[in-house]
């Protein structure tokens, strides 16, 4: 690229000037070129669908004919006036909490165990990732069988030991716990591995000096591991939030009884499932579905901003303490 500068005298002035221009472009432009694949991909699979969905949400869109008449914000008004939308919002948040909180606590515990000196480390590390590579659809099918009301394994076991059967497919909280269980099954190991990576990066001498100072295993975990793990924890929490708010496969496949997924009284109707119901089973109300998608996007942005604010605070606290 820059080899021409080795033999400047052999070149005509004009030629040199051109190669200089080239190398100036090289310095100025190539960094953008190197990072461009991400932005080009993002523009195609992220930004364009986002804007296009926003466009569709303003129309009475016919997906087959790719046309529709302008509706203004009518689709948004319709969505916000639906009780099902607010139920879906409630379910999305409660399923998210039911899955994210236990998931992070268990993942932390697993990561801490994997971080200690145990035999066959790689075996255990690969082991916790196993559920992650199972197809979500397969997970949903297996778990919805386990959680069947009358002939499911879990209710059979419960009644065998004399406990009452739980309405996994009828009651709000049990059905959401069942769905959260599927999510946890799939994501706990994955998060544990990310947290483990964070733990491995903590300087070991911190632990050594703490041990010399007489700190026990638990004291070291809470006073060194957790504070040092903050950036990783924040990353895990943010990705879990975004993933949790978009949960679809599990609730969609939890009950195959009706065409309109989410439960007869919307016990486990999440926002994405609601979006799918409106777009695909109400004779192609794509405009309304697009409006739901945008509202979901705004919700994620708001929660993302809250996350960011908390992250900043934590970062500032760290800076102050380090000073």
């Amino acid at each position, binding site marked *: 690229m820059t080899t021409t500068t080795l033999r400047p005298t052999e070149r005509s002035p004009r030629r040199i000037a051109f190669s200089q221009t080239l190398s100036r472009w090289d310095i100025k432009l190539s960094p953008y070129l190197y990072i461009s694949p991400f932005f080009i*991909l993002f523009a195609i699979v992220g930004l364009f669908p986002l804007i296009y969905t926003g466009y569709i949400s303003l129309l009475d869109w016919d*997906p*087959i*004919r*790719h046309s529709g008449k302008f509706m203004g914000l009518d689709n948004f008004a319709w969505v916000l006036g*639906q*009780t*099902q939308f607010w139920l879906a919002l409630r379910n999305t948040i409660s399923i998210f909490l039911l899955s994210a909180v236990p998931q992070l606590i268990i993942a932390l515990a697993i990561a801490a165990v994997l971080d200690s000196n145990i035999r066959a480390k790689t075996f255990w590390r690969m082991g916790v990732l196993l559920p992650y590579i199972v197809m979500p659809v397969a997970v949903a099918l297996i778990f*919805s*069988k386990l959680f*069947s*009301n*009358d*002939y*499911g394994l879990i209710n059979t076991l419960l009644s065998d030991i004399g406990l009452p059967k739980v*309405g996994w*497919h*009828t009651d709000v909280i049990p059905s959401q716990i069942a769905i959260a269980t599927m999510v946890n099954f799939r994501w706990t190991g994955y998060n544990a591995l*990310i947290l483990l*990576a*964070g733990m*491995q*990066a*903590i*300087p*070991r*001498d911190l632990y*050594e000096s703490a041990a010399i100072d007489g700190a026990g295993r638990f004291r070291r975990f809470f006073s060194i591991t957790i504070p040092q793990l903050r950036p990783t924890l924040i990353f895990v929490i943010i990705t879990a939030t975004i993933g949790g708010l978009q949960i679809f496969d599990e609730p969609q496949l939890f*009950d*195959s*009884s*009706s*065409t*309109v997924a989410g439960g*007869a*009284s919307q016990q486990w109707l999440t926002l994405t499932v609601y979006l799918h119901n409106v777009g*695909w*089973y*109400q*004779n*192609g109300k794509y405009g309304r579905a697009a409006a739901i998608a945008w509202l979901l996007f705004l919700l994620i942005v708001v929660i993302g901003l809250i996350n960011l604010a908390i992250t900043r605070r934590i970062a500032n606290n760290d800076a102050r303490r380090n000073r």
Partner: protein
Amino acid sequence: MSTSRRTIAAAVAGAAALALIATGCAPAASTGGDDEKITLTLGTFNNFGYSDELLAEYTALHPNVTIKQNIAKTSDDAQTNLFTKLAAGSGLSDVEAVDGDWMPKVKQYSDLFVDLASDDNAGRYSDWKTAGGTADGKLIGLGTDIGPEAICYRADLLSAAGLGTTPDEVAANIAGDWDAYYAAGEKYTAATGKAWFDSAGATFQGLANQYQNFYEKDDGTVIATENPDVKAAFESVLGASSTLSAHLQEWTDDWAAGMANGSFATMLCPAWMLGVIQGDSPDATDWNIANVFPDGGGNWGGSYLLVPTQGKHTEAAKEFTDWLTAPEQQISAFKTAGTFPSQIAAYDDPALTGATNEFFNDAPIGTIFADRANAVTVTPFKGINYGAIMGAVQNGLTRVEQGQQSVDDSWTQVIADIKALG
């Protein structure tokens, strides 16, 4: 101890793989005739009874044509697939199966499908089946099967309650209107303490298919919320279900298990349900079919085959569809999967009238379902909102069966849900 080691986080880019259906390599204007090698794809769902042997017969007649069948699990999956790829403008099979319940939605786009009318298939169907496949004067769908309904029952359970064992005895005991069917159920539950039918939702389907205009008028206006027939059916089914139902919603895992465990004694049985029952309770030996249905007859389901214009070999696909929906081929499918022919000529064919089903204790399914088809007097109108309205009503029935709402509260919510569709 090792020094601190930075772990580098690797960003994983997920690549979405697009499954493209190979449609051969011939130019677009192909007629499929002569000796040009082509592959035709056929998209169906559930079990249409198009066995490999049946499809091989076509290849034997047309050595240049290879048939590949893509089977979706449920009618809903097929619906999502069809509309997604119709919107994309590519990716559909050369021949696509469409369920009668969502055929009205497809008919809005009749210009995207090939006109299949020909001398071969003129007069092949009853008027209502032809009307179901016709849009804007074009015959875009050739009928495959229909779903005339009978009653399936477990002989062991019914004989224990003194309601008969043979199909004739059972039919005599439950013949009449819906009240007669429920009354026999009361006798059964009084004697055994067990459930008579599977769910209010499934039973409601039987009633809904006995009205010309149940949810919508012929011009598509939604009348579900003010039609007294809907409310009456909703209340009468739920009244019966409080004592007679096993409360097992259709297509759930519990429903399938209940079929195998004998947790209900009878169920409404459109012809295609035979394959479902056999699939869900393969070890049960006592299922049988009574040649009877409350209030005469009813048709539940039935499908069409369509040829999308986006296919590469539309002429060859049209020829293949015509062959596949001919009476002889449909009789073969009926023997495989119980999909009862919609083709009139099939009803006099000894191959159909003589058909029996081993799983259902050698029930003469050919004559039973031919009788049931003859008993169908009403052709329900199903418009573009039929599926969504039925979904709202089914949810309402389920809420009551699960004990979450009273009948009145549930009906109030059904009305609100249907109005929200508008």
